[in-house]
């Protein structure tokens, strides 16, 4: 028995030896580092054998000293295509840095994974970061401050070429932490064909009142005006349109229970109780709004600029004409900005940080912002890009793309307080409660939410 066991062990050891020899002759400098990196966290994410950990060092002396950095990104489909294309072009454009891009789900998933990876000492050098989370990440010391880099390379970077409307979330306490990357605002998508059929002017609706009138007419035709989820991002827009603010100036208390913050909920509640608009609830609310619009059950939807290309394709496929417009105004126009910026994590080595910085500059260049705008619909982040001949020609051909750029004039940054993600959840629940329950008034519901929010914000 003992003999038999030894024999088996010997064979096993031999096999291991042969296998590892094969691996070594494959001469991928990352293989060795890969094993180390994977031992940490995120087993699911790191199955790719090109992954290199934070502690990756080239094992082979003869291999050129290529620095390998990880870049984590959010979302699939067209957004992913654009990101991977840009990474690929970057890798081919030079031979010093190799960027490995890894998909991590939506923004929430991405943030949770970056946080866990950071705690485990295996964070990616570069990651997408949804703009309203910049504050909490910077305050936790997870982000590398970019001020000195930007100062050093100011000729090449041209920081003031970025649209000022997009820089509000790049700074935390006056320090630069991110560069605007795939940035967006919500816009109004319209089914022009349906409006014409109903005898409505497809140039509207420009105000909340017009939106109500339009919806009334459309209801008469057996449709709903709009399907809109009670989403915090759209709500921020409607508050801005009413002239209000989400939080107080110093960010220490809630301001959304002011009359300007209550007006949007009153408006939504009134319209949905009369069946003029539909407010779906739950996890599928966003997709439901898109589906209703795509299937021509509703004439309008709110959506990110990131959806322009996709929506144009849907409209074409379903045989209707579509247009985009500013979100309707109450006392004025107003929208939040959204999307993500690129950041560098603070625990990487200096070498990796330099490589990451090169990558950031590349990804946010004029050429690349034009490319991602045309491919997906996100905003062109640089003024020089908006003024370029290439985009002028593009806007002339597809005016639907230009709306978001023009609307930036009315854009404001999103709140970035540490507690804001939690506050946002509280607000969303308060809105849903006010809309669902006829007995709950929007004012009371938001007051209650404000009370909870104040407790969190004052800390």
């Amino acid at each position, binding site marked *: 028995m003992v003999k038999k066991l030894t024999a088996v062990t010997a064979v096993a050891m031999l096999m291991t030896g042969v296998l590892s020899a094969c691996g070594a002759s494959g001469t991928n400098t990352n293989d060795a580092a890969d094993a180390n990196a994977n031992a940490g966290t995120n087993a699911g994410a790191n199955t790719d054998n090109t992954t290199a950990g934070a502690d990756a060092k080239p094992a082979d002396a003869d291999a050129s000293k290529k620095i390998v950095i990880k870049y984590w990104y959010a979302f699939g489909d067209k957004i992913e295509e654009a990101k991977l294309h840009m990474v690929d072009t970057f890798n081919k454009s030079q031979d010093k840095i190799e960027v490995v891009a890894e998909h991590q789900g939506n923004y929430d998933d991405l943030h949770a994974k970056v946080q866990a990876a950071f705690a485990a000492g295996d964070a990616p050098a570069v990651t997408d970061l949804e703009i309203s989370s910049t504050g*909490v990440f910077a305050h936790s010391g997870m982000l590398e401050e970019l001020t000195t880099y930007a100062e050093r390379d100011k000729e090449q970077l041209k920081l003031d070429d970025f649209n000022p409307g997009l820089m509000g979330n790049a700074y935390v306490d006056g320090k630069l932490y991110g560069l605007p990357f795939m940035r967006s605002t919500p816009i109004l998508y319209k089914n022009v064909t349906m409006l014409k059929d109903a005898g409505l002017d497809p140039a509207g609706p420009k105000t909340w009142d017009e939106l109500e009138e339009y919806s009334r007419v459309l209801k008469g035709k057996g449709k709903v005006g709009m399907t809109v989820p009670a989403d915090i991002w759209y709500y921020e827009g409607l508050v801005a349109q009413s002239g209000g603010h989400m939080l107080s100036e110093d960010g220490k208390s809630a301001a959304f229970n002011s009359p300007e913050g209550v007006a949007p909920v009153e408006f939504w509640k009134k319209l949905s109780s009369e069946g003029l608009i539909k407010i779906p*609830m*739950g996890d599928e609310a966003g997709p439901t709004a898109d589906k209703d619009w795509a299937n021509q059950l509703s004439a309008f939807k709110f959506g990110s600029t990131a959806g322009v290309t996709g929506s144009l394709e849907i409209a074409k496929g379903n045989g209707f004409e579509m247009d985009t417009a500013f979100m309707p105004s109450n006392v004025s126009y107003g929208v939040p900005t959204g999307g993500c910026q690129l950041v560098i994590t603070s625990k990487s080595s200096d070498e990796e940080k330099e490589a990451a910085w090169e990558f950031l500059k590349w990804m946010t260049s004029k050429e690349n912002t034009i490319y991602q705008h045309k491919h997906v619909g996100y905003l062109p982040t640089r003024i020089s890009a908006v003024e370029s001949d290439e985009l002028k020609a593009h806007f002339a051909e597809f005016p639907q793309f230009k709306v978001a750029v023009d609307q930036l004039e009315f854009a404001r940054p999103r709140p970035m307080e540490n507690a804001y993600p*939690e506050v946002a*959840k509280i607000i969303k629940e308060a809105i*849903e*409660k006010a809309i*669902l329950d006829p007995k709950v008034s929007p004012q009371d519901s938001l007051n209650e939410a404000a009370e909870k929010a104040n407790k969190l914000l004052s800390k």
Partner: protein
Amino acid sequence: MRTWEKLRPYSMVAPAIIVFSLFFIYPIFYMIYLSLFDWNFVSPTKTFVGIQNFKDLLTDPDFRQVLTNTSIYTLLTVTLTTGLALLLALWLNRKSFFHGFVQGAIFSPHIISLVSISLLWSWLMDPEYGLLNWVIGLAGFGKLDWLSHPSTSLVSLVIVAVWKGLGYNTLVFIAGLQSIPPDIYEAASLDRSKPWTTFSKLILPMLSPSIFFLVIINMIGSFQVFETIAIMTQGGPVNSTNTLVYYIYEYGFRFFKIGYASAAGVILLVIVGILTIIYFKLLSNRVHYR
């Protein structure tokens, strides 16, 4: 030689003990330790706050609703799954192709990943485009809101859990039924026992180990429900489907409040612990082991 004899059992169990301590005992104590701090998981400084996290939790009306949701969900899931499984097992406990087929069919959800099941049911329960509402519409009834209204969302999740768990529960019951010696039935029929008497006085007591086992397993499983909620509702609408484990995840990884989340984790640990003890104390006296 003597010492080896003494040490041998310990060296045999050592690997298991080490793994167990590292992955079960240590995290439990670390969680209890973390629950006393205000920390965001990455910041270099942890602030000691004592039992403040527990005070905050117990005074938060949302957390009370989370506890209520979890209890209702557990109660409904456990009673429905065990009850239906018992009925099905009584029906399926015979040998024919048809019964075998039905048994296989209801067991199949058990081997599908819960994530796939959640996605599938999200589509089925879609209020506008879902298959269920279409079928209900054909039958002439109005549409149900399923997951998108607070009054129906929790029950919808219970339906998914019951559908998923039914096959396994039935299988355990059938195994239990088949291990009952046939001579007891013969004795019962000789005594002209009525079907109900046979069931309540004979089958139920003989099945009690299976029932005991399933109730415990289902209960602990329901208290820890996470995947369906993360995928189908994210705790909404209006907090109506938020349960303990999802709440813990949300605070730990969405809002970066590890101390607070750990405190909720400690509460979960205590609840599950107490339930288990009560059940072992109360039920084990009544369970009939052969």
